[in-house]
């Protein structure tokens, strides 16, 4: 976890500094008469201090135990997780163009088949059934505003 602590604290250190510097462009005001930028400025400074503390602590602990600060850690990303995120993003991008039913049918099929590892027939059956039930429940019964595609669905 030490490698992860080093990386994450460094990210938060930079983020804190960016927040602090950016908040100076907003009206900071004074402690007695705070402007819109005061809270973000304090947040950014505190974030940088604490992230810096975690970074130093992790670094010193690694050295004191005779380990490489950036030793091997557990795997961060898995193919299935990355693929699922990409599929969801495609869903978000295309839903208003292609309509709810078409996009839902497509992503369910891909999720069942490519990520879930089901057979093509089971994936297709599962996708059609789920999309139909979702359409009936959300669009017809609950009257949720869902986008309609070129097919009118």
């Amino acid at each position, binding site marked *: *976890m030490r490698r*992860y*602590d080093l990386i*994450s*604290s460094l990210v938060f250190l930079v983020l*804190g500094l960016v*927040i602090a510097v*950016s908040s100076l462009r*907003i*009206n900071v005001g*004074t*402690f*007695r*008469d*705070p*402007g*819109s*930028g005061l*809270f*973000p400025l304090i*947040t*950014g400074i*505190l*974030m940088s201090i*604490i*992230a810096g*503390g*975690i970074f130093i*602590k992790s670094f010193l602990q690694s050295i004191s135990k005779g380990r490489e600060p950036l030793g091997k850690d*557990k795997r*961060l990303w*898995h193919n*299935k*997780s990355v693929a*699922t*995120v990409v599929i*969801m*993003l495609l*869903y*978000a*991008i295309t*839903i208003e163009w292609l309509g709810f039913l078409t996009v839902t049918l497509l*992503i*369910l099929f891909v*999720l*069942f088949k490519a*990520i*879930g*590892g*089901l057979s093509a027939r089971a994936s297709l059956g*599962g996708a059609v059934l*789920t999309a139909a039930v*979702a359409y009936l429940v*959300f669009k017809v019964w*609950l*009257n*949720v*505003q*869902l*986008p309609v595609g070129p097919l009118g669905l």
Partner: protein
Amino acid sequence: MEMLHNMAYGFSIVLEPTRLLMCLLGVLIGTLIGVLPGIGPSATVAILLPVSISMGAADAMILLAGIYYGSMYGGSTTSILVNIPGESASVVTCIDGYQMARQGRAGVALGMSAFGSFIGGTVGVLGLMLLAPPLSEFALRFGPPEYFAMVLCGFCILISIGSGSKLKALLIALVGVFLSEVGTDLVTGQQRFTFGSMTLMDGIPLVPMVMGLFGISEVLLNLETKFDRIVFSSTIKNLLPNLEDWKASLSPIARGTMLGFFLGLLPGGSATLASFASYALEKRVSRHPEKFGKGAIEGVAGPETANNAATSSAFIPMLTLGIPANPVMALIMAALLSHGLQPGPLLMVKSPDVFWAIIISMYVGNIMLVILNVPLIGIWVKLLKVPYDVLFPLILLFCLIGAYSTSSNAEDVIIMIIFGVVGYLMRKFEYEPVSLVFAFILTPLLERAFRQSLAMSDGGFTIFLRPPIALAFMIVAFILIVLLIFPLMRSRLSRTGGL
């Protein structure tokens, strides 16, 4: 007398057929998601939040509350039968519950878990009913300085009692503080960190953020996990505990109720913390601590009671002070707000129907759960055999529809996905999303109270110390900060050889 009148009023609302149906639906969904590993109450309430907006306020609250406390009942089933906790509050039940199942006592473990849950939940609701009205009246005296001091104190409690690294909890809470600052400053009308986005002008939306942090991230992590769902016992017999089991369990149930109720009140003091604390307490006070881990019924009765008592008491700060004690309460609070209701001291006065409907529905829901849970165990066991490969696309689809329907905007879906990835990374890097969500919700209240207080005092900081209530909160906050810093410094000094 007034209490009885309020109860009768609450029952008259809840016992209407549609409300009873909502209550039943809520507890059934709650039990279901409690049984299924990979989806917890936060994600479910977040998913159903957009749907609940189209219902009446009382109906929606009864449904969402039912999901929350229903999940506590369901969570123990998987812990006992499969050794996989259905949700985090039932992690500790695996230890002795599963051992009991291995010894052929799965029925007794499930039965005691259901009865303990019922007792903890019902006593918790009784406490909620007794404490909420006077606390609401007391909170009416709160002005901006008292609110500032109280929220600050809440932050300190959250960081102090959280598990894992305190520094990391503080750091991630600050990220939550920052995220809540994105959008239009309501005092000055100035834009903060919006980068010209129309969506961000209203701030980061809570529902897609929470759905991402809890729902999507959970699915992404579970995709990497192989669930070996070998149900230990498919035929459950002897659900009713015998006299000896009751004798052993009564004191743990009583202690679990008290402990869970108290921990549920605290910011960040979740049902999970209550169950762990109860297990530790039972092991410490037991005359036979060596039996723990080998199928001690006390290790099931205490924690299962405590987590249900905590779910009931968690409603108190949200309903009376407008402060959510945990992410689920934050979501239920968001549901109240989207119905145009402001949680806090005036809720009981302005919307007594919703206030008492929530409380009384919990009595009714607990009775439904204890009646339904025991005969339905066979069905829950069968559900456990549904492979995750079939389940996860359905969970994702619910999240995607839920995020889209909050404002019929695809940008909300993208925000949810981004927070899903953030939540996934946070868990891998061992940062708790709870602190982030808590800070995100409370910061606007904190900032507004801070600025209003200074405007009232003409910039004088003593306003935070003059009112007795604010002073009391500030003293508690100060003590907690000292207690937080002192061990950190001591461990540092001991490493460097001291001064």
